[in-house]
């Protein structure tokens, strides 16, 4: 049963990634569609990380003692100052695991 679950999930995930890359699919992207899609990365990535940062146990936590929130602010400041992904990720994760 677990193997079936794994294989079915793999098929679903692969199809979602591959389907629209196939040239046989009759889709032409206009300039407007492409401009719309250029917002997909910031939109999706933010929608994934925001609940991790702002919600604790399912409810909003804006306290400075929410380590996720304070370290997310630290990461924001670090990446603005350094423009360096690696430095930002490593320092903010280290601080997080230290205070968590």
């Amino acid at each position: 049963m677990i193997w079936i679950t794994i294989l079915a999930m793999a098929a679903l995930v692969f199809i979602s990634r591959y389907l629209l890359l196939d040239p046989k699919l009759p889709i032409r992207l206009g300039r407007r569609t492409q401009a719309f899609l250029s917002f997909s990365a910031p939109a999706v990535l933010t929608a994934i990380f925001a609940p991790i940062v702002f919600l604790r146990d399912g409810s909003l936590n804006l306290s400075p003692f929410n380590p996720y929130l304070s370290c997310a602010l630290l990461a924001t400041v670090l990446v603005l100052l350094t423009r360096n992904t690696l430095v930002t990720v490593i320092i903010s994760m280290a601080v997080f695991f230290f205070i968590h």
Partner: protein
Amino acid sequence: MTDSPNSSAAGSFWRGTLAVMPLTIAVIPWGILAGSLALESGLSPIQSQAMSAIIFAGSAQLVALGMIKAASGLMAILVTTALITSRHLLYAMAMREAISPLPLRWRLILGFLLTDELFAIANQGKLAKFDPWYALGGGLSFYLGWNLATLAGILAGNAVDNLGSLGLDFAIAATFIALVVPRVKDGASLLCVLTALCLSVLCEALAVPGGLLIASLSAMAVGYGYSQWGGRKS
């Protein structure tokens, strides 16, 4: 491949590997969590590794493991997986111009490797400059890192108690913040990010099904609308 000289292909491959390196490092805690949680959910070590090796989708794996542990049915797991993975349709659509003209072999490999992280480094909006070797280097090294981290989680799974409570999920937040913040360059992208932020938190707090997609699509629409009609030209 004959369409690019070997030396520049190797160079591109290496540059892709380097570009994704911070994300590969940041995914290590996440992979360890996936490996140890798989064992805890009753999967064998081989099954635990197979999840990372053939599904290769962290968020879908972690949510599915929680459901397997809670003895959810196969259908429920697959519907949830479909919702979580639906964002890849957006990525594939955005990369379509660049990848669909490539030979089948390239499309299958890059399609399989098309994670959030690969999308973030490979899709810079300059479609004419898309370099498949760069994307392959980024994708393959990230795949290797994810699977080694899973293996570490499987090996450590029995040794470390309560790995789940360590807050390994902050790694994902830190990575995505580092990717998103530098992209906020104008009013349109700022509005897009703020919309995604508020709506995703709201949807998650209210447990709205498909909240990720609702928040993402609304944010894209707001950013696009502002760039077209309200603000400066995109």
